[in-house]
């Protein structure tokens, strides 16, 4: 009995020792030769990409691919003309069957207007000009590059399309309103009641919404698909106050204006990268 136990412990100890040291032995005996040759080759192969990487990092922004739709509001053309703002808002709301509810809690807005300090809290300062104090500014969904609403939506009812539009599938919306909490621009409205009675005229090409659904500006995705321009732009077309186009195309009209003029975005510090720009 005693003899057997002794034997067993010896064998077990030797096995454990061999098991523990085996990887180290394998590494010491076989890898150095292979590793050294591999290292040299790898270093050579890595040389070029590393340089390329450095270059890309230095080039500030990599040239973005695909389409990213954006909109520019030239507020200089809206100053002193509140009726022009109302025209743009009315056109959008008519095209999209947006109800007109005169109640701060229940109101639905896709495009609306607000004072400067509400629209651009990061840009407001004391002793601002008379023009800023007296005029309202046109605001809508910013169709952010990093949309917080999309991140928080539990049902993927809101999502970012490849062309940069932050779109909504009303069929999937469960009305949890996380997106309204997530949106730093207040661009989303909730249907607290059936919106139908508050719609003055129906656009038969677009649905209405139902109670319990969130809605917002869709950058006129359905009109762009037909080759039309956004409804707000079309309404104020002759003034040239709104420019729409592909932000990734250096030759587009919007890029020309952006390259030439001094523009600002809403709440840039949040890092949402809005697609809506302002000249103020």
């Amino acid at each position, binding site marked *: 009995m005693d003899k057997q136990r002794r034997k067993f412990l010896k064998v077990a100890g030797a096995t454990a020792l061999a098991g523990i040291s085996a990887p180290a032995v394998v590494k010491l005996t076989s890898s150095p030769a292979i590793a050294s040759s591999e290292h040299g080759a790898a270093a050579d192969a890595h040389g070029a990409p590393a340089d390329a990487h450095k270059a890309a990092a230095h080039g500030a922004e990599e040239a973005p691919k695909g389409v990213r739709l954006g909109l520019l509001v030239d507020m200089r053309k809206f100053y002193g003309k509140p009726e022009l703002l109302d025209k743009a808002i009315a056109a959008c709301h*008519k095209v999209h*069957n947006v109800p007109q509810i005169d109640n701060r809690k229940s109101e639905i807005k896709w495009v609306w207007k607000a004072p400067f300090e509400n629209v651009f809290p990061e840009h407001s300062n004391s002793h601002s000009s008379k023009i800023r104090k007296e005029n309202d500014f046109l605001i809508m969904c910013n169709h952010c590059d990093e949309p917080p609403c999309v991140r928080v939506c539990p049902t993927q009812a809101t*999502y970012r*399309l*490849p*062309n940069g539009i932050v*779109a909504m*599938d*009303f*069929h999937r919306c469960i009305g949890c309103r996380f997106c309204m909490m997530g949106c730093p621009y207040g661009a989303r409205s909730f249907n607290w009641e059936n919106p*139908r009675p508050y*719609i*003055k*005229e*129906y*656009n*038969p*090409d*677009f*649905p*209405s*919404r*139902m109670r319990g*659904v969130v809605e917002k500006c869709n950058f006129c995705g*359905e009109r762009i*698909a037909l080759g039309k321009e956004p409804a707000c732009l079309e309404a104020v077309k002759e003034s040239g106050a709104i420019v729409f186009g592909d932000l990734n195309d250096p030759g587009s009209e919007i890029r020309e204006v952006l390259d030439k003029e001094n523009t600002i975005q809403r709440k840039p510090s949040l890092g949402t990268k809005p697609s809506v720009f302002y000249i103020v």
Partner: protein
Amino acid sequence: MYNKRFIIPGLVIFVLFVTFPLWFNAFSTASPVPKPELPPGGEKECVAPASEMRDRHMVLLNEWRDGVLRDGERDVITVGGKQYRKGLQMACMQCHTSKEKFCDTCHDYTSVKPFCWDCHLTPEEAALKKETH
């Protein structure tokens, strides 16, 4: 067999009782098979054969919805030389101009309550508040 007099009539009564829904419906006129109204405009062709539409129209509508809203598949559909945009309001209801006489007939019969019309406008509803200019 013992009690033949009771067992056989009893069995007959039992079978008749169990199959009551079948023969009652066969002879009654209480729930006739629905006859949805064919397009009043006289269109004979749909986006798919009638039998397939009968079975799968809800699947097709879901595919259209996902295609249009998410995958950018907003291409038009040509049926019988006419072009339609994908969508309940923009394709289906162009020919089947009455939700009440078309959709509802079968949905009521089968007690199906789809919620399409909570948001989508029936031709009747759309005409109620038509654009005035």
